[in-house]
């Protein structure tokens, strides 16, 4: 009888612990930071007025000149400024971009550019950016481009794209990903969020040439 009482106490203890566990994790509801219901037809944040595709020329990871305005014209383009030694937002964002593209039709991937511009002028060499991007472009036929330049060039590129100019050796930077459509306008932007992948996957087909 004593044993049975102990057992009952043990089972009650288990029930309490389990209840505490389920109470502390309320599922996959986005936090306030990410609770973005989207704008208009988009799941990202709408831009009004729309931003025209900017023109700036930087250097790609092979050391060649890359004219963003000309070479991505007419293509759906995701533009992001960050740095490779970033432990947090940058790799998460690029992972979401890669995963979103991976989920789309190959014809759509083929015409899409993903342009990463480093804000860390001192440390991000072409080789470093190339290696870092290779973590994210696997399994997609989209064109991943890594760009670098002088501090003045990078600042000018951010200004042209209406992105807050990064500070602190590029480590304090905007988390926004801009999506330009085939019509060369950005009508939607993605701040860092836990459902960025789904937002981009939803919106990219809307801005591509049908």
């Amino acid at each position, binding site marked *: 009888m004593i044993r049975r009482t102990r057992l009952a106490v*043990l089972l009650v203890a288990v029930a309490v612990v389990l209840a505490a566990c389920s109470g502390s*994790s309320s*599922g*996959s509801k986005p*936090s*306030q930071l990410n609770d973005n219901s989207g704008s208009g037809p988009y799941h990202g944040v709408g831009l009004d007025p729309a931003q025209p595709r900017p023109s700036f020329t930087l250097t790609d990871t092979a050391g060649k000149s890359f004219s963003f305005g000309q070479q991505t014209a007419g293509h759906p383009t995701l533009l992001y400024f960050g740095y490779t030694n970033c*432990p947090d937002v940058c*790799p998460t964002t690029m992972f979401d971009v890669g995963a979103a593209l991976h989920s789309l039709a190959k014809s759509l991937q083929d015409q899409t550019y993903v342009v990463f511009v480093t804000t860390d002028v001192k440390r991000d060499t072409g080789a470093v950016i190339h290696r870092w991007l290779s*973590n994210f472009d696997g399994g997609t036929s989209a064109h991943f481009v890594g760009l670098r330049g002088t501090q003045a060039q990078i600042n000018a590129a951010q200004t042209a794209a209406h992105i807050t100019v990064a500070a602190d050796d590029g480590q304090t930077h905007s988390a926004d990903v801009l999506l330009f459509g085939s019509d060369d306008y950005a009508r939607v932007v993605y701040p860092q969020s836990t459902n960025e992948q789904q937002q981009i996957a939803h919106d990219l087909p809307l801005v591509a040439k049908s």
Partner: protein
Amino acid sequence: MRLPLPAVAAGALLLIAGAAGLVRGAVPQAIASGGSSAAAPIVVTNAYVRPPVPPSQTAAAYFTVYNTTAQDDTLTSVTTGAGAVAVLHTIVNGTMVAAANGVVIPAHGTLVLSTGNGHVMIEQLFGRLLPGQNVNLELTFANAGPITVTAPVIALGAPVPSTGATK
């Protein structure tokens, strides 16, 4: 209908052993060491570590801190078993900055570190960090003292412990 006594005894033993096993399994390591009773002043949950993305050699740790006391407490430092340097970064006025003087967790308040919302940056790693490994984190509080939690290494893109917090 009378069962032989040895069978009854064996059944009871099995039940007790099973129940005891359940209890042990149901108490997570982090909570066991951090204290799960209502008397624990500080409770740390949902700790995890993101490994570096090559060629970067910087990892990040995340967790949620609950201050169950009626007094503010300050998370003054974090040390880890993963690397020589650990720096707490939080968002101040919309910008991610190193918290040089620690972070105050208000009375009955929480601190939630999550992607884009603060992290512990871990540098000068002692070795490779692979998903499936565990990292010990020691959080030191001005009032509550040191608390050690175990944080699993979780790959980029893989699900992380839900904080369930809405700030």
